[in-house]
């Protein structure tokens, strides 16, 4: 039975990371109407920057402070996102959707190459962050305390995001813009600023996801594309543009993945796409998506 407890925790950790990425993807789509193909690359960038900063700083910075670098990675990605939106994405708002897909896909390719150019092919790790916190024994099997803490971070991030969108003034502006861009603009909302900040927040979440993951795994080339595909499954199930959908989708996908790995390994990917297909058949907009 101990295995069940452990696999549930594995599943929750994975769900926390998936939620951060999918929430960013959904937020950007919900507000700006852009399907950000480069979203996985921002996640990878968060992982690389965090690992690189931890490696550089580990000689001089006290060990306990190294955990702050998780935020450094996330914030750095957000700043890059804030710079990219007005320069690369804004010129394409008036064009048909295909152009936005193309430009973000191009961004994906460029970012992957930049990552390779800067950090090379060797994986970067920051596993000291996990090892320093140690392990707890659950039913006779070890489990990293770091992972437990990061499940907590995922919960806090979900609550904070919800409060931000539904309980702040900026959240109101964000939702207003999402509902009707022209009306919002007519009421004097600075749409350009809202778009830039929405994109920045989306990137912040993706970067945070990467930062959280990198100590438990490693920053490797191609990690962005892998997570992009899975987060698309998450938002298809949950409904693109919906934060609740991202949360529920992440929980479903991670639980399904863990169950298939434990019992029917061969069906891991098939099961994910099957569920996505069934959801699309029954509710084409996803579980929490709004009708177009």
């Amino acid at each position, binding site marked *: 039975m101990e295995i069940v407890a452990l696999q549930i925790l594995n599943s929750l950790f994975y769900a926390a990371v998936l939620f951060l990425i999918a929430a960013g993807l959904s937020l950007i789509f919900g507000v700006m109407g852009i399907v950000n193909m480069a979203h996985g690359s921002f996640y990878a960038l968060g992982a690389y920057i965090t690992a690189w900063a931890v490696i550089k700083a580990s000689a001089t910075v006290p060990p306990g402070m190294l955990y702050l670098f998780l935020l450094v990675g996330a914030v750095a990605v957000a700043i890059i996102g804030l710079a990219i939106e007005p320069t690369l994405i804004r010129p394409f708002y008036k064009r048909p959707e295909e152009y936005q897909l193309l430009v973000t896909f191009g961004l994906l390719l460029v970012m992957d190459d930049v990552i390779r150019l800067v950090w090379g092919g060797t994986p970067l790790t920051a596993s000291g962050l996990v090892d320093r916190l140690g392990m707890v024994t659950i039913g006779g099997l070890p489990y990293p305390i770091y992972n437990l803490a990061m499940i907590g971070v995922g919960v806090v991030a979900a609550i904070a995001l919800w409060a931000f969108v539904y309980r702040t003034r900026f959240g109101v502006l964000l939702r207003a813009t999402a509902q009707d861009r022209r009306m919002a603009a007519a009421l004097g909302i600075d749409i350009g600023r809202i778009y830039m900040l929405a994109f920045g927040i989306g990137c912040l979440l993706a970067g945070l996801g990467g930062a959280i993951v990198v100590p*438990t795994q*490693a920053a490797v080339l191609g990690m962005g594309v892998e997570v992009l595909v899975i987060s698309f499954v998450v938002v298809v199930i949950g409904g693109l543009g919906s934060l609740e959908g991202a949360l529920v989708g992440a929980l479903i996908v991670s639980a399904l993945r863990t169950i298939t790995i434990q019992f029917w390994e*061969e069906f891991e990917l098939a099961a994910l796409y099957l569920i996505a297909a069934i959801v699309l058949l029954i509710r084409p907009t996803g579980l929490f998506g709004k009708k177009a």
Partner: protein
Amino acid sequence: MSNGSMDQDRRDFLKQFGATVGAAGLGAAGLAAGPRTAEAAAKPKGNIPDKPLKVGHITFQTGPAELLGGPGAHGHILAMEEINAQGGILGKRKIETIFADEAAGTDANVKELRRMKLSENIDLFTGVISSGNTPALGPVAEEMKLLTLFNDGCTDFLFDKAVPNPKYTFRVTNIQSADGVTAAIGAATHWPKARRIASIQPDYSYGRNVFEHFTLALGKLLPGIEVVSESWPKLGTTDFTSHITKILSSKPDLLIAGVWGGDYVAFYKQALRYGLFDKMKVATTLAFGGYPHAIGKDHPEGVLAGVHANYHFLYPAADRWPINKGFVERYYKRWKEYPSFESDGAYTALYLYKQAIEKANQLVGGWPDDDAIIAMLEGAGIDSPAGYLYIRADNHQGYKDAVTGLSKNVPGYDFPVWDAKSIVSIPIRSITAPPDWPKPGQGHNETTAAADWIKKTWPQVGKA
């Protein structure tokens, strides 16, 4: 049957293979030739054009597989620069290589190969890492009559089925089925008491092949083995925690891991944390397969660290095989890193091509045509950094002795290397199907000729 005589059985069996343990294994290959540097190249005959020789090289330049592709490209470039520094092949034709990224996918690779031949007019095609790609590229190379020396992409399927009668395609490195068999012999040598087997393999042809041949060979060597857990993460997986939890819960004695490249790095780091290496023995086919420095000193000792195509830069030892010593020194000087088996393969492929052209030139004079070069490649032997490599004429496959060993941290390197005492070296003819063995579909329906050959000819240890 008592345990004592069973052990005796297995020792006899391993002895019959010619498998040796410890650093002294090289003699088994029947090496007679001295270092290559001793031979002075014969003067080229006839008129040689000075037009550059164009080579195409597709390998992984991005993604987790870059850990293998990078060293391959480095080995190719080193050989190219050395040959060009001597004035090129036959002293006249310098090599120019066009590179492309294998990560673009199989269809894109096929298109790129056609483009390289049709619009760049390449004379030779080399490289390729993935077993998914050689069976697609091989038939195209044959169709375009393009001389091809695959570096890897080691699936048995290539010369068993996809190109059963190769003319233009060759492959210098390993056959895939030998990976699982080598790991099985290494595991049986070091851990003869293992019975409960867990497996984690990438979910594509390579992983399937390793699992099948490992369990098949191990079953012959260790009676009564039982597979207690199978994990099939897809290629490119970064999160292995659920797989590790599953493996731990099945309480195996031995784990066989065929995950490779960046996947293996992610796997071992996560497995370390969960104490996996303390709870079971671990055999791998590719732990030492990427850049040597891709794995850190935190990698546990005592793991059977496979090198897939049978080369790790400290073996054969410098005092026994000066060719390797010189290669490692030049490679380090050029790239500030140590070579991997892909480096050795890509480097040797180019020299093999050069050697074939030089021989053909002595016979026919001038620049030899492809038929003359192919005739010299078939049955060719070359002293490579890894030892003696020969190309079988019947299936165009390169054969060299299989080798694996246990990981150990030693002073002087920032990464683990093999424990010299633990190295297991196996003559390749002992673990691969002989030339006349029927291919799949010719009287048997096993997945490979090797599987059929093992099933039918290997004795069962522990049975009278």
